[in-house]
């Protein structure tokens, strides 16, 4: 097994599948895309468990003149993200199984068939997997930008009336962020070249202590791109618009997988390559993170559309993750990585369940519903369970994430945690108020007319694994915590921080 380039195969599988799905038209293409997604899932699980005890890293010189490498590797955080990506893909494809069915409400006439949707989704999966596996800054950057292409078409091709504008807004925002990052990538080359040997290998760059203003500039270059991705206030406004217009399946991939590149990048690149600058920027970053937590939650409360509401909850939750990352304790960073995984599942559950409502009603406006629980009790039940995970109820994975972040961050950032913890109350308000308005009360006329069926077996199959994962990781989080911990420990070593000892704050 040692010579088999497992990681390359893992990344290529969905890309080849995408190619085939584009070519094979109609229902066969859709089935083919699903088959490839399932094969990738199995292979992804093999890699996930296989990478625990053997080093799967691949390093091949690519453009030696500039020190670019085709280098892939997987650490704990990468494994968690690979797991998230390969699990979400088949679920999304199943959720959007009937995406080109004109009888389905909620969408404008789609531009392309469902095989094309599957193709772009697989394309996105392949690029995202390479992003999570890249051990070379340039390679990372190329795939980072490449993910925009399938995402753009996923938004552009299916969804509401204004999806074209939303897709463009998403693209421009991301490109702007990416452009800033490009300067920093070039800067990395300059730094390593100046040190003697030009190299984009992350391990090489991390070995160089840059220091000074240069490091700060490079940090900013990467951080801006990641802050746009992760959506942090104030560069978040593309997300609600995109979520409102795109199909819930596409949004799931966007928020569940692509946005994770933001927090992933912060840990791997900002903290890993520019430790001094990270420490320098911490006060501002923590401030923005806390603002994101509270602001995102308040905006979610006042949202009148369920898709926008869920998008804003993500702004709030990404705030928690960034808070955990920049609090610099092993527990808080591990909590952030764990939360990245948990949020992937909970946001997927929320978006896809809202999608079920959208398919029946033709709109996700909250005012368009009322009393749905009575006519579709199972739909109401899965919305509530997903919502309870979103509000971080103990027993769900999100609680473990939020709790570990906050209790870990308390010794270094007590004020920020004390403010961010208010987000848990606001979360109860936005989830339960939405539930109350959509599902409780007497059945309204519009509900009676449009919500004529409870969940179909296919729809149950979509949410069941997500809910199961949220509960399993909520009650038994330790195995996944152990996957994430080494990355957090390595990061702590990079930034030269050590965990505060108990009693160092507030002892006698």
């Amino acid at each position, binding site marked *: 097994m040692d010579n088999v380039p497992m990681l*390359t195969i893992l*990344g290529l599988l969905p*890309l080849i599948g995408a*190619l085939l799905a*584009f070519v094979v038209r109609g229902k066969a293409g859709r089935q083919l895309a699903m088959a490839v997604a399932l094969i990738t899932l199995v292979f992804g699980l093999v890699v996930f468990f296989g990478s625990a005890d053997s080093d799967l890293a691949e390093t*091949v010189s*690519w453009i030696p003149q500039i020190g670019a490498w*085709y280098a892939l590797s997987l650490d704990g955080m990468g494994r968690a993200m690979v797991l998230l990506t390969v699990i979400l893909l088949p679920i999304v494809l199943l959720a959007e199984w009937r995406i080109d069915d004109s009888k389905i409400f909620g969408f404008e006439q789609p531009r392309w068939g469902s095989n094309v949707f599957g*193709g772009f989704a697989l*394309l996105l999966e392949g*690029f995202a997997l390479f992003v999570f596996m890249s051990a070379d800054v340039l390679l990372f950057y190329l795939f980072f930008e*490449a993910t925009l*292409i399938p995402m753009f*078409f996923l938004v*552009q091709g299916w969804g509401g009336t204004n999806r074209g504008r939303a897709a*463009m*807004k998403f693209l*421009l925002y991301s490109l702007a962020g990416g452009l800033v990052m490009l300067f920093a990538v070039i800067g990395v080359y300059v730094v390593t070249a100046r040190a003697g040997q030009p190299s984009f290998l992350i391990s090489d760059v991390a070995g160089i202590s840059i220091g000074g203003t240069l490091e700060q500039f490079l940090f900013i270059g990467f951080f801006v791109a990641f802050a746009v991705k992760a959506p942090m206030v*104030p560069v978040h*406004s593309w997300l609600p618009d995109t979520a409102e217009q795109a199909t819930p399946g596409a949004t799931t991939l966007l928020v569940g997988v692509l946005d994770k590149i933001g927090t992933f990048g912060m840990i791997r690149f900002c903290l890993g390559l520019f430790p001094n600058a990270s420490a320098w920027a911490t006060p501002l970053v923590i401030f923005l993170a806390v603002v994101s937590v509270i602001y995102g939650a*308040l*905006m979610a*409360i*006042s949202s009148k559309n369920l898709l926008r509401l869920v998008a804003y909850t993500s702004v709030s939750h990404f705030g928690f993750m960034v808070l955990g990352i920049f609090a610099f*304790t092993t*527990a808080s960073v*591990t909590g952030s990585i764990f939360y990245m995984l948990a949020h992937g599942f909970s946001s997927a559950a929320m978006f896809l369940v809202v999608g079920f409502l959208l398919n029946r009603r033709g709109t996700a406006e909250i005012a368009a519903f009322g009393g749905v*629980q009575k006519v579709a009790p199972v739909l109401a*039940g899965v919305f509530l369970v997903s919502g309870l995970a979103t509000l971080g*109820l*103990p027993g769900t994975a999100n609680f*473990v994430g939020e*709790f*570990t972040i906050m*209790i*870990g961050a*308390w010794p270094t950032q007590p004020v920020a*945690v004390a403010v961010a*913890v208010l987000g*848990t*109350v606001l979360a*109860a308000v936005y989830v*339960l*108020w939405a*539930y*109350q308005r959509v599902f*409780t*009360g007497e059945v309204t006329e519009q509900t009676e007319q449009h919500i004529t069926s409870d969940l179909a077996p296919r729809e149950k199959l979509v949410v069941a694994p997500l809910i199961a994962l949220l509960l399993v990781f909520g009650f*038994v*989080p*330790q195995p996944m*915590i152990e996957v994430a*911990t080494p990355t957090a420990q390595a990061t702590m070593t990079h930034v030269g921080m050590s*965990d*505060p*000892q*108990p*009693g*160092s704050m*507030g002892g006698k």
Partner: protein
Amino acid sequence: MNPLEIVVPVEATGLFQYAWLMIAIPLGVAAILLLGGKATNAWGHWLGVLGVIGSFAVATALFVQMLGAEVADRAVQVSMFDWIDVGNLNLSAALLVDQLSILFALLVTGVGSLIFIYSVGYMAEDPHRRRFFAFMNIFIAAMLTLVLADSYAVLFIGWEGVGLASYLLIGFWQQRRSAALAAKKAFVVNRIGDLGLLVAMFIMMALFGSLNFAEVNQAADTASASWITAIGFLLLLAACGKSAQVPLQSWLLDAMEGPTPVSALIHAATMVTAGVYLVVRSHILFELTPAASLAVCVVGVVTLLAGAWVGSTKDDIKKVLAGSTMSQIGYMMLAAGIGPAGGAFAIFHLFTHGFFKANMFLGAGSVMHAMDDDTDMRHFGALRKVMPWTFVTFGIGYLAIIGIPPLAGFYSKDHIVVAAWERGMAFGALAMLGAAITAFYMTRLMMMTFFGERRWAKGVHPHESPGIMVVPLVVLAIGSAALGMLLNSAIQTWLAPPTGHHPHATALWEIPWQGWATLALVLIGVGVGYLMYRGEISFEQPRTKNPIVYIGRNDLLADQFNDAVFVRGGGKLVDGFQAVDDLLIDGGVRSTTALATGIGDAFSRLQNGYERRYGLWMVVGAVLVSVVLILGRLA
């Protein structure tokens, strides 16, 4: 602090290793009922009853086991698995079975079993009876997690779990808008309290490196006094939310929207007393912070009077009982704040209150059953003749709560009044005043419901409830009558280790002067209530200009305050944010987008129809590059 007083639990052996079954059984039953769907409709309620009875059986077996054990071996730790272990954070899922938690577990599962059996009859007509029993089992599992936890972290899982169960059951009839609103309110207000517990845990972790009760207790005196005081106040905040203490009391009265067995089990006998449990469980921390302890006493006294005030003005029988619950928990809180001398009495009162309040709530449910779900006492009257069983059992609960010797409430409340008097004259006097008001409003309830003339609405034909509802009433009434005498001195010795209490023998017939004084005040309260409500009572609620009555009827204006400050004020704030987000943050971006969209449109017109091919070429390119790379590697 005498370190010898801190109990370090021993590792579980024998039967104790199976303590987790108490939680697993009802949880499994809930899962079967929820996932089984309609297939389980026919027998689901009986399986639901079996769930709690199974838990009760395990609890009883452990209790017997504990009775036979040495005092030093009575606190047992049951380890299960590592929950979260990273860096300095080390949390394990483990249970603590000791004298305090087993007593609470017996109360939850014992009274719970009776209420479950009663519910089979009470909910017989409801199409969603299976779902009801599933939610009730979730509650039992969560409540037992709360009381059996060996750390604040596991306690918190149960703490929020009972909040969820409470939310689901208050909103059980969620087609009713008022029920849906009440459920949401209960959850959100509870979450505000939960903030306190969360931050308290953050601080404890930073100070002591552990959230385990025994380890926190052992390290408690290494921390600075100001941090301990902060923890004390934060735990008090949590307790206020869960136990509906002022200022977080407003949700409990609305919670009466839930089915009456829910009010009996969750919002009277068990869940709402969890705040008292938390304070008693943390007594070693509170002993180190006089300020927070005093605050606990003040909150207790204020709430015991506020609850009595509300109870005196309501016409809705369940809301009178809800006000009374607030008030009685106020007594427990007051006792818990007094310290080791009061902690055991707080739990004693918690235990007897669990019986007589569940008894009266189920009695009220029986009355509602007879009156076509009417809860307005102005439409009752003269029910003692048609509902003799309900009347007699309710009457025993009445005598118990107002504290007539030798019923349960007399003993448990008497101890609190005496201890309060020793803590401070004002506390003692106000606790006595509360006892008098309790006697007044409970007499009012009895007069309006069971005595006087019949004022029934047209078409209502009251009748006694079926046997399956009457039997639990009888058992609870026996408990309300006898538990005080039975437990009076035993419970103090039993609870001495976990509460730090130093029992002094109290004979049943020894009544201190405070006891006599309270009894006299109670009789005055009964007399006033009798005189005021023996005459004619109008069918409609008369308008009032009396501010005391007005404020009481409107839940002390808490809703008006919340509405003005949080709902309307918060709404304006949030709407303002929406405008800012739209105009400032997004507007700046939009002007750029407008330009770009123009270019983009032109671009897409040029490329119309070719996007797919574009995507295709992208893939071809990517695949080619990768293939070349692999080949290069193999070469």
